[in-house]
């Protein structure tokens, strides 16, 4: 019996040693700790795509904003100004002449020309490519031909007939209808240019995008880990980086990202989880960065259900929602109770446009409710499970409806997020539903047309007067005239109230001690990474 080891030595440790060796054999990844090299780290969620036309995700925009210079960009107060363009002009709001600034280069040395934009847009608008931002090109003539109604038909051509490259510096764009906000649309990330090399190998481009912006990729996209951007030496535009680079680090948990911000392992976090905000205010002090946002929550009605046909009923429900109370109870008072269909950050927002109809007034609500003949059956309230706050405020709304309007039979329908939009698209909801809109670009048209226009609103609301006013606004040459039309259209939508505005979101970010000049815009431009100084 001598000379034999105990079992622990033989089986357990032996197996452990083998497995340990296997584990150590796997190479470890090098660290990229925040260091004194003039670069900084931002935490966010993983992007879905890095080909500009193939994403509508703000996490992708975070990265694309540094890699690409669009033709236009937005000023701090939300006005479009030229960036890669020398000028964008039109006499009739339908045919637009775009002059591209000379001497710009892509990160691989290719020249940025009118063709670079035309190629990128054609690629994104071509139906069979099935790009996520495909519909953002529907304004351009020839879009319908590239996206046939019959789902099994192949489009004839591969290019938008409305795009004409006149010479390397000139692109002429013909739209389907006059559209005055086209320069605003050009700020949307999907409208970025692409180099020939990128279009020739889209898979490689996805891993290593080649842009024309102030930053270029350093190495490839490390999925679910990080994307490192470094200044592009030959950048000639106005957004020269004031730092030595930015790393976008992926987090799957917002709480963890916030902990890393406190530990100084990341320098900027654009969104602190709601539950941590009171603590963050205390701990971060002047490094806590609150901001207004362009995202607004609505409560829509399925007008294809007869029971919701009377506008008075919809107004009654709007008037029993205590927006300010919910803001305090659910959102720490940081949100902005809606007084219009538009968020305050949008140029053209009129304070109190919604007036009494968006003001808590149970007595008047009762009167309107009675005038509408009350409500029969079960009132079902729909929201997705994307955030716990949706249920919190829905419960408050339901209690108020029960107490003030006397509808006793109220059911909550919490739908998984992956199912929610398919349900709304298929019009399967049987009651009021939550939905929101985040600005693609800061124009009243972006909200009103996308959410209320007869051709694609979810409520099933048709109103010729409204549609006509939007189209007049889109045709208008003068700013003032356009605003007047958009406002008139907004008044129609408020009068009919097919969808109730609730509140505008507020963003709460934070920064580390290493960085300064952190500006987060409420637009698709997001964090102005080039402006951040590291010291």
């Amino acid at each position, binding site marked *: *019996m001598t000379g*034999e080891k*105990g*079992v*622990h030595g033989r*089986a*357990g440790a032996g197996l*452990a040693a083998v*497995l*340990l060796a*296997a*584990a*150590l054999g*796997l*190479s*470890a*990844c*090098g*660290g*990229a*700790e925040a260091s004194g090299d003039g670069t900084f780290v931002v935490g966010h969620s993983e992007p*879905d*795509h890095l080909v500009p036309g193939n994403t*509508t*995700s703000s996490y992708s925009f975070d990265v694309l904003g540094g890699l690409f210079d669009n033709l236009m960009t937005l000023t701090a107060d939300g006005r479009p100004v030229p960036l890669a363009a020398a000028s964008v002009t039109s006499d009739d709001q339908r045919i637009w002449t775009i002059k591209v600034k000379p001497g710009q280069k892509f990160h691989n040395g290719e020249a940025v020309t009118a063709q670079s934009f035309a190629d990128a847009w054609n690629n994104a608008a071509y*139906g*069979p*490519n*099935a*790009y*996520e931002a*495909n*519909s953002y090109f*529907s304004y351009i003539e020839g879009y319908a031909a590239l*996206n046939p*109604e019959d*789902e099994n038909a192949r489009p004839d051509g591969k290019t938008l007939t409305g795009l004409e490259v006149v010479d390397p510096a000139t692109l002429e764009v013909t739209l389907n209808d006059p559209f005055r906000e086209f320069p605003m649309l050009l700020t949307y990330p999907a409208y970025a240019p692409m180099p020939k090399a990128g279009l020739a190998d889209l898979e490689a481009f996805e891993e290593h995008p080649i842009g024309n912006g102030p930053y270029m990729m350093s190495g490839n996209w490390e*999925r*679910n*880990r990080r994307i490192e951007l470094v200044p592009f030496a030959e950048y000639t535009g106005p957004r020269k980086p004031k730092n030595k680079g930015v790393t976008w*680090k*992926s987090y*799957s*948990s917002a709480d*963890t*990202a916030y*902990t*890393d911000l*406190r*530990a100084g*392992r990341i320098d900027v976090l654009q969104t602190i989880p709601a539950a941590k905000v009171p603590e963050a205010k205390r701990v971060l002090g002047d490094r806590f960065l609150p901001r207004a946002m362009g995202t607004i929550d609505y409560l829509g009605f399925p007008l294809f259900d007869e029971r919701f046909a009377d506008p008075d009923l919809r107004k009654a429900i709007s008037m029993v929602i205590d927006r300010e109370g919910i803001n305090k109870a659910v959102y720490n008072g940081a949100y902005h109770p809606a007084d219009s269909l538009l968020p305050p950050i949008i140029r053209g927002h009129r304070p109190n446009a919604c007036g009494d109809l968006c003001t808590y007034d149970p007595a008047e609500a009762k009167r309107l409710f009675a005038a509408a003949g009350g409500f029969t059956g079960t009132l079902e309230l729909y929201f997705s499970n994307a955030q716990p706050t949706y249920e919190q405020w829905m419960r408050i709304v339901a209690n108020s409806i029960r107490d003030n309007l006397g509808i006793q039979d109220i059911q909550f329908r919490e739908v*998984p*997020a*992956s*199912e929610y*939009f*398919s349900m709304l698209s298929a019009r399967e909801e049987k009651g009021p539903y939550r*939905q929101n809109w*985040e600005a693609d670009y800061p124009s009243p048209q972006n909200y009103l047309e*996308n959410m209320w226009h007869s051709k694609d609103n979810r409520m099933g609301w048709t109103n010729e007067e409204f549609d006509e006013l939007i189209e007049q606004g889109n045709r208008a040459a003068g700013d003032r005239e356009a605003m007047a039309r958009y406002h008139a259209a907004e008044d129609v939508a408020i009068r009919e109230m097919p969808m109730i505005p609730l509140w505008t979101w507020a963003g709460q970010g934070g920064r580390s001690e290493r960085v300064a000049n952190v500006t987060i815009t409420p637009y698709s431009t997001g964090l102005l990474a080039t402006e951040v100084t590291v010291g």
Partner: protein
Amino acid sequence: MWRYTLRRILQAVPVFFGTTLLIYAMVFALPGDPIQALAGNKPVPDNVLHTLRERYNLNDPLLVQYGKYMWGLLQGDLGENYTGQSVSEMLAGRWPVTARLALTAWLFELVVGIALGVWAGLRRGRLADTLVLGGTTLVIAVPVFVLGYTAQIVFGLHWRIFPTAGADEGWPASYLLPGLVLGAFGLSYVARLTRTSLAENLRADYVRTANAKGLTRVRVIGRHTLRNSLIPVVTYLGVDFGALMGGAIVTEGIFNLPGIGQQVFQSIQLKEGPVVVGAVTVLVLIFLLVNLLVDLLYGLLDPRIRYE
């Protein structure tokens, strides 16, 4: 022994096909439309939705989808997720992370768990025993996310002993804290199991005989008692290794480790059948293999167990 092993391996084939079909069917049965969910709130034209559904075989009935998937799999092609990433690439980047995490946790369970168990088992009813029993009860009672966030804030943020999150510092620095959190439950379980099993066996006749023969304490404990006592512990450790590989969802989330658990969780939310099946298939293989190893280990621990 070898015939037994071969038989077990052959048995794994139907298990493999059964589980993959089952997983595929479960993901298929989840409500919602993954393609619509990709776009979220922004408008997507019908022709784009249709093209994407065609591209990923989502218009086919379940068995056709599964057949197409399996046909690809047998040729070594794991397919793509709905944003066009190759599943094999997605998983290749994640397995090392999960393997390191699971092994770290497992080693904690093995070494610390058994050591604590032996310590308590040999001092049954005394202070050491009470400490181990009390401590492990506490750990088992605390949910993993409480333990994880607390450990992260105390050791990572306030004391700065470990990195708070991420895999950037590599092994072992980045993995010690999450490994300890992930292994805490199993560690407690192993300690209690070892302690009870050892305490039981110490009162057995053969131990009295060994003592009477005048064998040294080390030999009595190590060679005779512990070997018998470890059978249930080894069973648990084996099964738990598979669970650690696939069940690290919460821990990976808290410590921002891009591993398999996190991927499976995200993919279930997004209804990405090919990704879920791809990841789970490997997990199933690991489970089968570890179970076989555990069964073979019994023979080493207890010579009375023989496989024919």
